């Protein structure tokens, strides 16, 4: 029996189909663009998990994406071998998010303050990284490089084999596996008590507190997990672009991921993924021409979606199907209820 319809279930059929398409893609088509689409999808998934299920919107989630990229670049320049840098690219964003999250959530700040603080964090990182052009800004062997960023670092390699680098099609497979794994991890989280409590917190924080759940602990935990995923996406982005610049922390980047998620849909996992892939393609297409600015389209989409379909496209479609199904069942239910109430209710002796 399904106790938790509000979360939805793992649909293995669709998952296997999606995985098969993703994994078979390189056999037939070019992988350069699809790689970055998968990376963006992973980034969107990280925000969608937190925003859609726990109801927590980080306005500056790109901070953790960017941290992942920078941490990887700095670490790999210093270490040469990519395994530890890859892990650090997840670990450090997770730790930073845990600190900032604990500060926010144990302080019981509202969701609006959370938006402001997370945005300011990414602005600080943007300003700082843009200002690191001088020679004094080095971490080990890595020059931070200010606005020009860090170019030409070593890409991912097979763990333990620094000479076998993963680039081109292998990088595509790394991105695809990372996305699929993070999807499964998210599903697993949502199927556990942890995920169910998060949904409870989204619906009513006070009630969850009064059921004995430590709301700040749950929020901090999911913020940190989400930041780790974003960091992984950032690390893969760095590998794809082969350069890291402060633009990963920019307002534009912060807005983009929010648009992907909200267009795809809140309260689903597949929505953010599809949103990122579709809008990522639009972004790349718009990048090839100069007539219409990318910001214009992005902004227009965001305004329209917030006004017209505030929960996003995928839930709107689900809702449309769901309403049709529910109308049918409710009609039947009303008939049952009517028959029930017609029978006399037993009076309680006082």
């Amino acid at each position, binding site marked *: 029996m399904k106790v938790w319809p509000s979360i939805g279930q793992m649909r293995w059929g669709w998952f296997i189909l999606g995985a098969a398409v993703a994994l078979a893609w390189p056999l037939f088509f070019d992988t350069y663009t699809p790689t970055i689409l998968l990376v963006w999808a992973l980034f969107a998934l990280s925000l969608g998990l937190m925003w859609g299920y726990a109801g927590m*919107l980080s*306005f500056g989630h790109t901070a953790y994406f960017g941290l992942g990229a920078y941490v990887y670049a700095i670490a790999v320049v210093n270490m040469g071998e990519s395994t530890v840098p890859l892990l650090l690219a997840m670990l450090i964003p997770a730790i930073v998010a845990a600190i900032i999250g604990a*500060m*926010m959530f144990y*302080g*019981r*700040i*509202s*969701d*609006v*303050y959370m*938006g*402001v*603080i997370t945005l*300011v*964090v990414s*602005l*600080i990182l943007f*300003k*700082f990284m*843009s*200002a690191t052009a001088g020679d004094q800004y080095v971490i080990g062997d890595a020059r931070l490089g200010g606005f020009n960023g860090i170019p030409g670092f070593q890409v991912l390699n097979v763990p333990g084999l620094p000479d076998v680098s993963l680039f081109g099609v292998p990088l595509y497979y790394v991105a695809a596996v990372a996305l699929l794994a993070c999807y499964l991890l998210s599903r697993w989280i949502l199927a556990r008590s942890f995920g169910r409590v998060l949904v409870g917190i989204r619906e009513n*924080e006070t009630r969850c507190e009064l059921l004995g759940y430590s709301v700040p602990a749950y929020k901090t935990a999911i913020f940190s997990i989400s930041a780790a995923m974003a960091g992984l996406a950032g690390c893969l982005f760095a590998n794809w672009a082969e350069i890291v610049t402060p633009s990963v922390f*920019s*307002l*534009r980047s912060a*807005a983009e991921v*929010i*648009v992907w998620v*909200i267009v795809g849909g809140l309260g689903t996992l597949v929505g953010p993924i599809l949103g990122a892939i579709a809008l990522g393609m639009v972004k790349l297409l718009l990048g090839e021409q100069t007539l*219409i*600015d*990318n*910001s*214009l*389209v*992005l*902004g*227009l*989409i*965001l*305004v*329209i979606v*917030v*006004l017209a379909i*505030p929960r996003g496209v995928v839930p709107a479609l689900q809702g449309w199907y769901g309403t049709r199904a529910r109308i049918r069942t409710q009609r039947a239910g009303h008939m049952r209820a009517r028959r029930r109430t017609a029978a006399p209710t037993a009076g309680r002796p006082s």
Partner: protein
Amino acid sequence: MDYVAVVVLEILYMISFIALVSAGLAVVFGMMRVINLAHGEFVMVGGYTTLACFRAGIDLWFSMLVIAPLVVGLVGLIVERLVIRFLYGRMIDTMLATWGLSLLLIGIVTLIFGSSAVSVPTPIPGYQLGAYQMGGYNLFIIAVTIVLYVGMWLVLRFTRLGLIARGAMQSAEVAASLGYNPRTVYMVTFTIGAALSGLAGGVLAPLTGLLPSSGGGYIAQSFIAVITGGAGAVLAGTLASSGMFGTINQIVSFASGPVLGDIVMLALAIVLLRLMPQGISGRFFRNGQ
């Protein structure tokens, strides 16, 4: 001695700068509890309006002091009618929609003016203060800010419009009980807030230069000034936090460069938000979506 005067003037200028770019946001946030993420772009559009008028041969003073506020006020009115009015009471959605607007405005301005930096000439020459060359226009900014805030205070305190505004600040019902449709009050407020942003953009254009993306630079400063200032006494609060952030920013900047000044200011803002979540403005925010 001259150096002290220079530092004091620079601090005063920074405070005025923050207070000036925050004024429009303060009015909108204080009276409507709307966080307008397109605020920086309103300022930016004010700057470009000034530039366009100046290029068309209109007097620069007239462009920045009259046309820029009018044009941006009109933009604000359109935005309120088309977007904001559907979202009252949904704070996060408002933030998202206005963020979308900010991107949209950046896109439109890029389309019209291109994405390279442009500048507006400074109409007041510099002057010599001891060994230091000072911008005379900075003094004008300080003066404009003082006039603006005194003016707003007088309007709020002594006019019927101010009475309605203060009523609406308390709650929509108060405005309604004074015989005004709160929706109309909100519309007028948002328009006035936008016009103030346009004024700030126009006046500051000769100093800052213009880029379609320059709104992002204003948003952080005005945001933290207004929000840490609090919604309770919005003008005084904004002035107080402008004073604090401006002073700190300039002192750190003198000590170790302008970027660090900005960063310290933002970091301080986070700490303040954390320490005063139930502060003057925090009360209105809990569960405020």
